[in-house]
């Protein structure tokens, strides 16, 4: 080997050596870099591991700290784990006692629970399981559970976890809503109004009242258009309402429509339509409520007919009719009122009644109007001056007038012209007054006359007695007899005067009515009057006790009886007192078997100073007193008699006399 070659190889070797060193250096550096990288990788690895385990425990905590009750159970539904919320909600604690969830489920839900559990095992998850359970304190709760199975590493199910939600309140609200919906249904169904829900002219729903009204079924309605069975008769047309509702211009409307029934015939329905809108205000439904006003319509028509009828009666009746407002301003008059007052209708309307008719007794009017404001009906007399200036008397019957709200709006008065009656009445009153005065004068006259006549008569009687006594030795028999006759005539004259006095007072003195036993009356008369020996006065039936003036009854019976007993010529005389009770009167009869009274005298005997025959004891006044008393008791007196056939006097006395004091 030459030198050059050695040098060459040496240099080549040197380069190789250096290249190796360089390579080693690079490798060392690379391995240091690798080491650093590995260390950093380890660090970041452990950081990641920590992070992972934290996340896992956090997730665990999520379930434990979850607000809803969370339960882990084995496949027999025995609780393995439960969070605080579950313990609180169920009242059980699985760390203190064994809790099996199936035992909490109420009996009604056991089968459903078993089926749900089976489903969970098959599918692996169970959503919205709902049942009712009884928690430890006995409360019933509605719960909803969402659960899923838990598997071991071999993918075999070992248990299940579930989140329980307390839906008791939710269910209560649901029940309440159901209940309210039912109540609403009842209200809707039992409403007397027909209720229809529609979209456009299509019926969606209707209540039973509506179906009954028209006779279609709800199903039939659903196939029909509203216009198929109804027609507008009043108010805005339905189509227009529908349009305005859709445009949002109106929300409610009322129309009167005619509805045609399935079985024929129709009814008039007042239809209230309301718009039901969605949240955006778009028309969703139309709600119509139909009220059957057919009868109201008929009643209204009848009422109108009656109103017209009465209006024509009022217009044509003879009584004047006026309606005034609360200020007495005339609102309405009829023809008769115009005729009565002499004014024309247009002259009266709008005028104040008391002014135009110049009411004279205004105070009466004010007083009566006052009463009418209080709602009283009344009647009173008015003095007015008619258009011709004549004074008229009107009898007015007034009644308050009300509007529909029962508010007083005035009064209505019916007027009767009583001017003529009034005039007659005044005349009558005048006559009565005059009569009273003349009667009084007459009585005074009779009294004075009888009194003045009696005193000279008593003097004559005394003088005659004196003459008879003083001159009995001087006077012959004829003179004696004449004096006796004179005494008798004077006594007769005295009786006559007494009779006149009684007659004049019979009519006058006040009746003192009390309970009078007529048996006592007759008995006392029997004792006080002269009854001939051959005459018997009998009372076959006990007489009643009546309400009357004792003295007058005494006079009455005495006058008839004393007449009867003295006019009997038969050997045995009989006088009977009989009575009959009528509805309003007592009827008495006094029957004798005496001489009788000829027919021509039957009326005359009751007139004053009339007597039959020349009996000294008869003054001719007695029966006229009888007549007077009976008149005062609103009775009648009559006689049935024929010559020699006896006499029957009949008279009646009203049981409850009315004009006792006149």
């Amino acid at each position: 080997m030459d030198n050059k070659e050695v040098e060459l190889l040496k240099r080549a070797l040197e380069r190789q050596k250096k290249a190796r060193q360089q390579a080693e250096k690079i490798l060392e550096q690379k391995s240091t870099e690798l080491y650093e990288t590995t260390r950093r990788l380890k660090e970041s690895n452990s950081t990641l591991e920590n992070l992972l385990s934290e996340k896992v425990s956090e997730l665990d905590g999520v379930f434990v700290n979850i607000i809803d009750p969370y339960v882990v159970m084995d496949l027999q539904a025995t609780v393995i784990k439960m969070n605080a919320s579950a313990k609180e909600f169920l009242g059980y604690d699985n760390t203190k006692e064994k809790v099996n969830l199936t035992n909490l489920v109420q009996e009604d839900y056991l089968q459903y629970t078993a089926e749900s559990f089976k489903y969970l095992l098959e599918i692996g998850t169970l959503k919205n399981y709902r049942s009712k359970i009884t928690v430890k304190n006995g409360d019933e709760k509605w719960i909803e559970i969402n659960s899923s199975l838990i598997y071991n590493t071999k993918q075999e199910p070992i248990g299940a976890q579930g989140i329980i939600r307390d839906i008791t309140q939710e269910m209560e609200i649901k029940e309440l809503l159901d209940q309210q919906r039912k109540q609403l249904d009842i209200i809707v169904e039992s409403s007397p109004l027909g209720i229809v829900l529609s979209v456009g002219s299509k019926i969606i729903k209707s209540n039973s009242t509506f179906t009954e009204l028209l006779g279609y079924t709800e199903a039939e309605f659903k196939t029909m258009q509203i216009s198929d069975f109804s027609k507008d008769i009043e108010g805005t047309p339905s189509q227009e309402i529908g349009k305005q509702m859709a445009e949002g211009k109106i929300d409610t409307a009322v129309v009167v429509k005619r509805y045609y029934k399935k079985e024929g015939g129709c009814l008039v329905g007042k239809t209230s339509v309301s718009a039901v809108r969605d949240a955006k205000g778009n028309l969703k439904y139309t709600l119509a409520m139909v009220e059957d006003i057919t009868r109201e319509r008929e009643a209204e028509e009848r009422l109108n007919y009656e109103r017209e009828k009465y209006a024509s009666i009022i217009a044509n009746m003879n009584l004047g009719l006026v309606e005034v407002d609360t200020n007495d301003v005339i609102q309405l008059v009829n023809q008769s009122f115009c005729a009565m007052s002499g004014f024309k209708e247009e002259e009266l309307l709008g005028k104040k009644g008391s002014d135009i008719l110049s009411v004279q007794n205004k105070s009466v009017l004010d007083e009566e109007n006052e009463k009418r404001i209080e709602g009283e009906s009344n009647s009173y007399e008015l003095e007015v001056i008619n258009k011709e200036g004549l004074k008229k008397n009107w009898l007015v019957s007034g009644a308050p007038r009300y509007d529909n709200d029962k508010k007083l709006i005035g009064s209505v008065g019916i007027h009767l012209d009583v001017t003529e009656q009034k005039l007659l009445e005044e005349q009558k009153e005048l006559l009565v007054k005059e009569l009273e005065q003349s009667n009084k004068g007459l009585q005074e006259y009779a009294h004075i006359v009888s009194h003045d006549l009696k005193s000279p008569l008593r003097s004559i009687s005394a003088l005659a007695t004196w003459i008879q006594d003083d001159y009995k030795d001087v006077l012959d028999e004829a003179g004696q007899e004449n004096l006796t006759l004179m005494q008798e005539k004077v006594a007769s004259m005295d009786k006559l005067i007494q009779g006149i006095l009684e007659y004049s007072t019979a009519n006058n003195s006040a009746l003192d009515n009390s309970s009078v036993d007529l048996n006592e009356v007759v008995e006392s008369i029997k004792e006080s009057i002269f009854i001939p020996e051959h005459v018997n006065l009998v009372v076959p039936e006990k007489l009643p006790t009546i309400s009357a003036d004792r003295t007058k009854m005494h006079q009455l019976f005495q006058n008839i009886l004393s007449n009867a007993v003295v006019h009997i010529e038969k050997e045995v005389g009989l006088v009977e007192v009989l009575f009959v009770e009528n509805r309003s009167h007592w009827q008495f009869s006094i029957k004798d078997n005496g001489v009788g009274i000829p027919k021509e005298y039957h009326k005359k005997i009751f007139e004053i100073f009339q007597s039959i025959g020349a009996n000294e004891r008869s003054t001719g006044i007695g029966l006229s007193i009888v007549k007077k008393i009976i008149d005062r008791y609103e009775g009648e007196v009559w006689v049935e008699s024929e010559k020699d056939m006896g006499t029957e006097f009949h008279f009646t006395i009203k049981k409850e006399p009315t004009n006792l004091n006149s």
Partner: protein
Amino acid sequence: MKGIVFTEFLEMVEQKFGLETLDNIIENGQLPSEGIYTSVGTYEFNEMVTLITGLSEETKIPVGDLIYAFGLYLFAGLANSHPEVIKNYNTPLGLLYCIEDHIHVHVKKLYPDAELPTFKILDKTDTNIVMVYSSSRGLYRLAHGLIEKAFEHFGGTATISYELLKDDGTEVKFDIVQNG
């Protein structure tokens, strides 16, 4: 430039032209690395230029032909050091097709600071591939040698024609048609 390219180049020079030629181009080159290379290092591209230029002067062979010859030599070196990469492919066309997307990705993994050329595929059929080489180095003849050897590796040949898209050889279109 990767050290393996230098070590393979020196290997080829020693084999083909002898130790003396090798020593000459290193000693005459005044190289900053003094001609000391290791496959795991990285060296200036200019040193390669100096070495090739020196070899061309020494042997009177044009630079382009030397580079082409180096390409033919380099394939075997690369295939020896990284057989797992070649193993993934059944055909040379498949290999070429995947240079950009697969092989260069592997290179980047091992040598993150490697400066690699790009191969843009314009057209590909079962027997033909058209691609554009582009690199600031302009070593398209190196690529040419490598491609040719790749076909040889799979036991085939190809007709490889190229067209310089840029005069300095930094962008070259290759049209490769597999024979047979």
